[in-house]
């Protein structure tokens, strides 16, 4: 363990920026600078090998690159701020550059605009509800931000209810605000989550893993028995099944599957399917 740290410190002390392309899917540490593909030619070893002749050497065509969570802009380069694996996504419809981000793991949630989260109503003051989302401050939710809510027709929300909503304002300078409707005014599944069920907390990385399009865990879980799950990007999962025992089994599976290998998981599922 100490050797790895020493090696890493050595490479950082050298502080020569590496090309982002070469470190894809590898572990990066905070403080590293990464070069974008267009800058590699200029910074590369001078005179080593043939340089491709460019007709317009002065004007380089720049592509818009998006730097996602875990990365920051530092001049023309990307600065890593979280430790994890560097990922890249190619642009789908050709609008420049693609996305780079760091796949890290954490338990503490920081509100981000556009995220769908599960919150617990903690207070009702005048026209707004205070909703605890696991961040540094409780988010505010206006009573008009529900589908079909008017001044006369108030939504039926009590203290202690679970709310599934999304953030409209979420930055480090202001109190986060959430709503339970989308931009067209429709609920789209947001709002108060029904009675019963169980709410528990997991790490943020697990949520993203479970919500990936090709997640096997969810497909296998769905074959066990009828159930309902709601995932909040703030690390909270709400599950409900027909009996309490089934709900508890489901909660235990989802919590444990973070640290299980594929074989262990399959064993457990086959045992469950038998019983």
């Amino acid at each position: 363990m100490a050797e790895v740290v020493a090696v890493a410190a050595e490479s950082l002390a050298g502080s020569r920026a590496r090309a982002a392309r070469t470190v894809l899917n590898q572990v990066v540490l905070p403080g590293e600078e990464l070069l974008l593909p267009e800058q590699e030619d200029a910074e590369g070893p001078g005179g080593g090998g043939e340089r491709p002749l460019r007709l317009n050497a002065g004007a380089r065509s720049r592509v818009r690159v998006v730097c996602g969570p875990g990365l920051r802009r530092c001049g023309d380069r990307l600065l890593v701020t979280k430790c994890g694996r560097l990922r890249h996504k190619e642009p789908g419809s050709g609008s420049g550059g693609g996305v780079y981000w760091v796949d890290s793991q954490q338990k503490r949630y920081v509100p981000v605009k556009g995220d769908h989260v599960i919150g617990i109503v903690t207070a009702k003051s005048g026209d707004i509800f205070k909703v605890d989302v696991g961040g540094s401050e409780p988010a505010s939710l206006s009573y008009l931000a529900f589908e079909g809510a008017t001044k006369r027709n108030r939504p039926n929300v009590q203290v202690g209810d679970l709310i599934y909503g999304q953030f409209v304002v979420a930055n480090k300078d202001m109190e986060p605000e959430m709503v339970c409707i989308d931009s067209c005014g429709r609920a789209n599944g947001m709002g108060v989550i029904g009675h019963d069920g169980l709410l528990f907390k997991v790490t943020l990385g697990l949520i993203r893993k479970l919500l990936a399009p090709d997640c096997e865990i969810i497909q296998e879980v769905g074959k066990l028995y009828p159930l309902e799950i709601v995932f909040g990007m703030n690390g909270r999962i709400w599950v409900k099944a027909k009996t309490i025992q089934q709900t508890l089994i489901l909660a235990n599976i989802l919590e444990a599957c973070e640290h299980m290998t594929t074989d262990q998981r399959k064993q457990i599922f086959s045992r469950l399917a038998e019983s």
Partner: protein
Amino acid sequence: MAAERKTKLSKNLLRMKFMQRGLDSETKKQLEEEEKKIIGEEHWYLDLPALTEKESFIIEEQSFLLCEDLLYGRMSFRGFNPEVEKLMLQMNAKNKAEVVEDKTEEVDVSDEEMARRYETLVGTIGKKFAKKRDRASYEEDENGDVKLIKAKKMFLKPHD
């Protein structure tokens, strides 16, 4: 005579809109420039070189939605909550941007037939509301449609 000596009009009067309608475009431009000069000298401005913002090609986003295609957060399996299952199909289809083909509804009656029917309808309903005298001016066409043939008798103003 009054027309020999031209009255001198003040500058403010000449600057008014109704006095400028008759001027050429050139004189108008000159007047505008003079106005700008007058205003420009009085206005305060910063004596700094124009700072050009460096165009950055890197956009910072803190959201994971852009990075990974995540499914919709509410899920229901084996019919536990049918509304959520419908929502699942809807939202996940939106993510993958599937093209939903609009099935054109089959029309029972074609548009041309509708137009024809309405044409004759006007005649039959009009006949119902016409006075007894005017009913004579409605006659049946070759196709059996009721149409107004003659012009209705209107009140004629008496000539002097």
